[in-house]
C-alpha cells in the first residue's frame, strides 16, 4: 500500500429535504477540515449534530449539497469506484451478513475485489485469528456474542488493508469492558497498518483515548474545536474532558481550549 492520501473537507454543506413535510434540514452548514495521512482523528459531537452524515459523505454514500471532500485529489462520491478497496468502514451495528459465516463475512470485501479464493481465505483467517476468533471462523453471526460480531466487523475492515478506516460509533453499543478492549485493538491495528483512521463518537472518553486529534462539532456540524491531544498531558485529560463537555453544551469553544 502507498501512503494514505490526505483528506480535505472544503466548505462542506449538506441539506436534506424531508420527504413528508418537504422542508429542508441543514445537516452540515459549512465545514472545513484537513486530515493528514496516518492521523487518528476522533470526531465528537452530540446526537443529531451531523456526524453520521459526515461519515456517509466521507465514504461516498451521500453527495454534498455544496463544497467537497477531496481525498488524494479525488472525491469519494464523484469518483466512487476509484476508492474500491481503499476505504473500509466499521459501523455502530456489526452489519454482518447473517447467511455468511464469520470467515465468509471477512472475505466479502476481498471477494468484491476479485482476490483469489486461497489468498482471501488465508488473509481472512489471519485477521480472524488476530482478533481472537480463530475457533469461530465457521460460526454464523447469530452464534456469536455482540462483541465477537463487532470483532468480525473489524476484521472485515482491516482485511482490506485500506488507506482510510472510518468507524461510526463502532463501540458505543457494547459493554464498557468489551468496548475498551476493542477500542485498544482497533487503535493498535490502525497504527500498525499505517491507515488514516477516523472515529466518529459521542463518547468523550473514547475520543480522548483514541484520537491524535479531537474534532468537536456543534449543531449542523459547526467546527467548535480542533484539539491536538499530544499537547495535553495525561494528568490534564480530566480538564480536557470538561472543556470539551463545556464546548458541546455551550455550542462554542471553551476558553480552556485556547492556546493549545
Amino acid at each position, binding site marked *: 500500500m502507498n501512503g494514505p492520501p490526505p483528506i480535505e473537507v472544503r466548505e462542506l454543506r449538506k441539506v436534506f429535504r424531508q420527504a413528508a413535510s418537504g422542508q429542508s434540514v441543514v445537516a452540515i452548514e459549512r465545514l472545513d477540515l484537513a486530515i493528514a495521512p496516518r492521523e487518528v482523528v476522533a470526531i465528537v459531537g452530540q446526537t443529531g449534530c451531523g456526524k453520521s452524515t459526515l461519515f456517509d459523505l466521507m465514504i461516498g454514500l451521500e453527495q454534498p449539497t455544496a463544497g467537497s471532500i477531496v481525498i488524494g485529489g479525488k472525491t469519494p462520491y464523484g469518483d466512487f469506484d476509484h476508492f474500491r478497496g481503499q476505504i473500509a468502514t466499521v*459501523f455502530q451495528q456489526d*452489519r454482518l*451478513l447473517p*447467511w*455468511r459465516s464469520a470467515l465468509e463475512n471477512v472475505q466479502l470485501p476481498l*471477494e*468484491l475485489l476479485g482476490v483469489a479464493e486461497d489468498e482471501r481465505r488465508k488473509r481472512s483467517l489471519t485477521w480472524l485469528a488476530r482478533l481472537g476468533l480463530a475457533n469461530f471462523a465457521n460460526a454464523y453471526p*447469530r452464534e456469536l456474542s455482540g462483541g465477537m460480531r463487532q470483532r468480525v466487523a473489524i476484521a472485515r475492515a482491516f482485511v482490506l488493508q485500506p488507506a482510510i478506516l472510518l468507524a461510526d460509533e463502532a463501540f458505543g453499543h457494547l459493554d464498557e469492558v468489551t468496548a475498551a478492549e476493542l477500542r485498544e485493538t482497533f487503535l493498535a491495528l490502525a497504527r500498525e497498518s499505517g491507515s488514516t483512521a477516523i472515529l466518529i463518537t459521542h463518547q468523550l472518553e473514547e475520543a480522548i483515548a483514541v484520537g491524535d486529534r479531537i474534532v468537536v462539532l456543534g449543531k449542523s456540524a459547526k467546527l467548535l474545536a480542533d484539539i491536538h491531544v499530544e499537547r495535553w498531558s495525561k494528568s490534564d485529560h480530566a480538564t480536557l474532558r470538561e472543556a470539551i463537555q463545556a464546548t458541546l453544551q455551550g455550542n462554542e469553544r471553551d476558553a480552556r481550549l485556547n492556546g493549545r
Partner: protein
Amino acid sequence: MSRQTVLSLVIFAAAWELLSHLAPTLGIPAFAIPSFVRIGQSLMTITPIDVVVTLARVIGALILSFGLGLLLATAMYRSHSLEGYLHPMIRLFMAVPVVSWILFAVLWFRGVEFRIAFVLIAVCGPVFLVDSLDAMRGVSRELRGMMRSFRPTTLQYFTKLMFPAILPNLLTSWKINLSLAIRVVTIAELVGAVTGIGHQLAVAQELFSVADVFAWTLVLVVLLFLLEAVVVRVEHRVLRWRA
C-alpha cells in the same frame, strides 16, 4: 405425520367407504361415490406419462416465471420510472381470472404447450415479481449501506447481497406458486391439451367415472405434497444459517 392427521384421514376414509356402500339405499347412483377398491383399480390404470407431462409443464413454467419475475423485479428495483410504468400493468395482470387467461391463450395461440406455458407464466410470474420486489425493498438500509461502502459492481450488489437476502421470501413464493401452478395447469390441460393430468380428468368426466377423477386428483395432491417437500428440503439446506 401427526396422530391427529392420521386419525382425521382414517375417519374421512371410513365415512367415504360407508357412504359408498349405503349410496344405492340412499338413492345415490353407485358410480357417484365409488368404493376404495374401485378407486384402487383406477389408480392402477394411472398413466405415468401424463403425470410426467404435467410435472414437466409445471416445473418448466415455474422456472421461466421465476426467472422473468426476478429479472423484472430487479429492473423495477433499480429504476423508479420503470416501476411506475410496470406496476399498474402487474396489478392488472393479477386481477385477471385464470379462466380469462385460458380463453385468451386458446384464442391467441395455436400450440398446446405454448398455451399452457402462457397461462402458467401469466398467473405465476406476477406473484414471483411482486414478492421479489417487496423483499428487495425490505432489505435493511444498514446492510445496503455496508455493501455499498465496499463499492461492489451492480452484479456483485445483487448476487452477494440482494438475492441471498431475499432467498427466504423467494422460497415462500415457490411454495405458493407450486400450489397455484398445480391447480392452474389442471384447468389449462382440461381445456386445450391431449396429454397430462388435466386431460385425463376431462376424459374421466366424459366417462362419468368418479373413481378415475378421485384417482387423478389423488395423484395431483400427492404430486403437490412431493414438490412442496422438495422445496422444504431445499429451504432447510440453504437457510440453515437461520436454524
